[in-house]
């Protein structure tokens, strides 16, 4: 295995396996079924967190500059990161799929319609953009996530491919009405996950709180001479929100997507009736 791929896997796999272990332990401890429960949220958090590790860890260790000057093309670095990301996310995705199929009648079977849950890894993988904040990374991440999940579910359900072409618009539109709660809660989960991870990345939770944490050049801190120094808690909150701007954007996009598709459900033929 080449040194670059080995390094990328070392960055992401331990945490991915850690999340997998955590979910299995939680299940064994009796958190109940996977579907629609806390464990789904945990898995989604894990997928989001793992997806962001490839770039997030590089930024945390400040190794990006040095890596980009070694004689390897950026395309190869990017491709290696995506391979490692897919490898790290697949076990979690597999667990999600297997767990949902192990539940009762409400779990989708081969007779059921397309379940939009397959698109969640796309949102998760697009969390790469939470740290790079580049549209291209977001699109690439979403594409990889969608491809990964479609390949996986396609292998599990070969008929899925034919159904997709006919069913996606109607299914998403109608199911969005049923899944608004799920989408909003998942968006909040993504936001919280990214919030905590980024806070950790910036060393705040580790206890390296310095006097500077309340004095950042955010627009709030610019008002007045020393007024921002008298509101340390507010400054801290605004600073954290500012750090999570990309995550907030993703969360708002998820909510907007579900609201728009729900509003447009009348335009599409009735899709799946799966209750999520």
């Amino acid at each position, binding site marked *: 295995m080449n*040194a670059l791929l080995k390094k990328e896997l070392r960055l992401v796999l331990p945490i991915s396996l850690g999340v997998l272990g955590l979910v299995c332990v939680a299940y064994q401890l009796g958190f109940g079924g996977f579907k629609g429960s806390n464990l789904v949220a945990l898995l989604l958090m894990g997928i989001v967190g793992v997806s962001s590790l490839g770039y997030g860890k590089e930024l945390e*260790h400040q190794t990006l500059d*040095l890596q*980009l*000057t070694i*004689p*390897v093309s950026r395309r190869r670095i990017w491709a290696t990161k995506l391979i490692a990301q897919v490898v790290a996310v697949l076990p979690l995705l597999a667990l999600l799929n297997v767990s949902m199929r192990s539940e009762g009648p409400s779990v989708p079977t081969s007779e059921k319609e397309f379940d939009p849950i397959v698109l969640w890894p796309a949102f998760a993988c697009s969390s790469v953009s939470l740290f790079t904040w580049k549209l291209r990374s977001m699109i690439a991440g979403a594409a990889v996530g969608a491809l990964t999940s479609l390949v996986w579910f396609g292998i599990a359900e070969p008929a899925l491919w034919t159904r997709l072409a006919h069913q996606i618009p109607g299914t998403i539109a109608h199911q969005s009405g049923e899944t608004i709660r799920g989408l909003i809660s998942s968006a909040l989960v993504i936001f919280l996950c990214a919030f905590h991870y980024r806070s950790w990345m910036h060393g705040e939770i580790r206890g390296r709180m310095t006097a500077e944490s309340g004095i950042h050049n955010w627009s709030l801190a610019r008002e007045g001479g020393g007024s921002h120094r008298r509101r340390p808690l507010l400054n801290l909150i605004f600073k954290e929100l500012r750090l999570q701007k990309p995550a907030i954007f993703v969360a708002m996009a998820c909510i907007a997507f579900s609201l728009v598709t729900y509003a447009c459900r009348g335009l599409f033929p009735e899709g799946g009736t799966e209750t999520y």
Partner: protein
Amino acid sequence: MSTPVIEITGLHYRYDKSDAVHGLNLKVMPGRCHGLLGRNGSGKTTTMKCLLSLLRPQQGSVRLFGLDPAKDEVAVKKRLAYVPDYVGFYPWMSVQETLDFFASFRDRWNDRTEKDLLERFQLDPKKKVTALSKGQRTQLALITAICPEPELLILDEPTSGLDPIVRREFIETVIGAYQDADPANRTILVSTHLIAEFEGLIDEFTLIDAGRDVLTLTTDAARERYQRIHARFTDAAAVPDIANVISSRKNGRNLEVVVNGELDRVMNQLRQLRPEELRQESLSLEETFTAVLSTKKDRQ
């Protein structure tokens, strides 16, 4: 005529609303040690990052070995090594593993140099990089940069965090030895605040201020051009005012004048006043740096 190793023309880079680099021009020929000198925030690191394609300039062109570093990425990177001002390594690796990791991407790697530098810097190959101090991480970064024997070494504040003994040894021995091994082909671009320490190494320099190149000279030409004249007169009242110089300072019977290329004129002017003592000396690189940037500031 040989191709410049580094050629920057009209470089512009802006962070949000502020210009970090504004119309910078720079040319470095092969075999030279070129210093990039400037105050904090003058644009040195930004220039280096644009050179290495770590930042994409809004305007201007950058060429390394006559190639575009964005398009001919790998071909350019194979011929250079970079040491940033802040060095980060992967925390699970030891010193030796880090060196092996970086060596795996290089066509050439001098194991003897690696061993020699590890001994000289007293770095334990088995030690985890998380256990290294800032200075030791810099030393490790220098080893990863020098062992592949690149044609171009780009150093951004390379002595930051090094103690004075290691700093001197690094500058005189390590960098000096690196370039002496192939003087015609090995080029160094170094940005530093420790101008006095690099003076013996730098062949030519560019002063950057507010994102612009203010002055580019060889060190020999700088020494000829920027001179300090000391004159002592019999009477304080006899000390004249000298116009059109970088600086002129009176202290009782003494006069100290710093000139930029006007040595003969000023010396003749002072000789006519028959001073008790009259002597000249070249400015050091650091004094030239201070003098030029002070003049620029006074003019603004």
